[in-house]
């Protein structure tokens, strides 16, 4: 009796897991477009201080969540760098939150793909959890008041033009 019950329960939970895994489901987002992004306080890669989202008020911010092991990040970081060089840091900031477990992995990656924008370290991924990252990499575009304007899940080189256009639109406001 008990065994049968257990088996039925097991069968049901296996089915539930399979269903949950393969059915497209709606995500409930805390980090939604039109809402304020949740604040953070993270150390910089250089170890010369900490940065919060509050510090960036008044600038259009491109916030990128990345890791050295993430395939598309090999392509995205160099493209973000040239974007940053073009637009400049007067009214715009790129802040990249690195989610590697160890700092060395990030440093090794950045030696091959150097960038001049701000890198923050979050080895435990608490900001990634707060911002409800679903795929690596994910980026957010924030307006001058810290509101999320758009989320970019994943990256392909062809998307850089769209990102550029979105940033320009915000800067022109």
């Amino acid at each position, binding site marked *: 009796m008990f065994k049968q019950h257990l088996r039925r329960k097991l069968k049901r939970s296996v089915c539930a897991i399979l269903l949950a*895994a*393969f*059915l*497209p*489901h709606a995500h409930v987002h805390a980090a939604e*477009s*039109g*809402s*304020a992004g949740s604040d953070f306080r993270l150390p910089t890669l250089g170890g010369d201080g900490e940065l919060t989202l509050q510090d960036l008020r008044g600038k259009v911010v491109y916030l990128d969540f990345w890791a050295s092991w993430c*395939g*598309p990040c090999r392509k995205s970081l160099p493209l973000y760098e040239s974007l940053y060089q073009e637009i400049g840091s007067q009214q715009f900031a790129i802040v990249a939150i690195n989610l590697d477990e160890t700092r060395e992995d990030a440093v*090794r990656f950045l030696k*091959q793909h150097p960038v001049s924008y701000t890198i923050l370290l979050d080895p435990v991924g608490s900001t990634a959890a707060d911002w409800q990252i*679903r*795929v*690596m990499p994910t980026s957010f575009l924030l*307006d001058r*008041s810290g*509101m999320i*304007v*758009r*989320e*970019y*899940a*994943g*990256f*392909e080189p*062809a*998307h850089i033009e*769209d990102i550029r256009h*979105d940033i320009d*639109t*915000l800067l022109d*406001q």
Partner: protein
Amino acid sequence: MKKLSSTVRSLIASSLGLPGMQELLAQEPPDEGISYLFNYYDEEPLPADKLAFGSPERYTIYSQQLRWVKNLDESYSLTVELLHEGMSGSSPWYVMPDPVAGPLQVMSGATIRENRNQADVALSRRGNGFTHTAALGYSTEDDYRAVYGRYSGEKESADGLSTIAWGLSYSDDDLEPTDAALFGRVESATRDSFSVSTSFTQVLNRNALLQTGVTLTSQSGYLSDPYKLVWVGETVLSDSRPDRRVMWTWTTRFRQYMERSKAALHIDYRYLTDDWSVRTSTLDLAWHQPAGENWEITPALRYYTQTAADFYGPIFSTTPGDGYWSSDFRLATYGALSYRLDGVMRKEKWSLSLAAEYYNSARHLALSGTPQDTPALVDFWRFTASCTVNL
């Protein structure tokens, strides 16, 4: 909450409709590049005390392979593979009784020289978590031609932690044995093979993943080896096998990350059973160890065991009633151990891989079944070098 400006509103609206940007993009296109592989395969000579007559020198094979991967656009990619193999040596012909030494192997006398060329083109399409691949291929030798096609698909779950895959393949083969009239071989024959497979891959936790799958293969047509003879009673007859074979294969692959050494343990197991009474088990253990900035060193051990086909025998004293007989060592009960060392060097733009393997087979290595004298069991060395340039 601050009111959104109209431009920002339209920005948000447009982002919802933008294809590709909106949903999950975990599916990455394959790395584009060109790879070259060289494989040297050398079988050890047959020991003198197992040889009746013929040449003790066995096969040496040089293989070269070229592979080109190109992403046609965001969702389509093309893979082209070309293979050339040059083979030379003698192959086991039949087994004859010897009142003193027991069964002895007769090898083909003259050195066989043969070339094989193969081309394989595969087109893949990715999108919405699915990947579909269709491929066509052609393989040709002096005496053998195969045309084949396959389709495979996979679906990644929404959370990217599991994958279901499925596949179909079909191969249509034509044989035209050389010197057929001279040796009384079949002049021409055909065989075909159909297989269907499915597998499931699951990330277990942040350090481990598991894949398990089954394949059903059905072969029909002329499945005998036209170049092999069998000692039956007082005479030698052509190798004779059933014209149908159905195989089930169950494969499981496990990967465990080792935090302390940053290495990975790979455990692969495969079980095969067919309607010829062949049962095989293959256990592959490998330790993938990163070394220095760019190297990965992998010692590996492979154990293989099989039981004989029910029509296998080194020698038949009487003619089997069902009309099937074979003394092909590949259908005997035996086991094999192979030791292997791989090294890979990975750089940003290229990678180089080297591998060496020693394979040793023997009847006493069989896990189950009743091993019979099988003088032709093979031992070989293999060296492989391959490199990939990312484009």
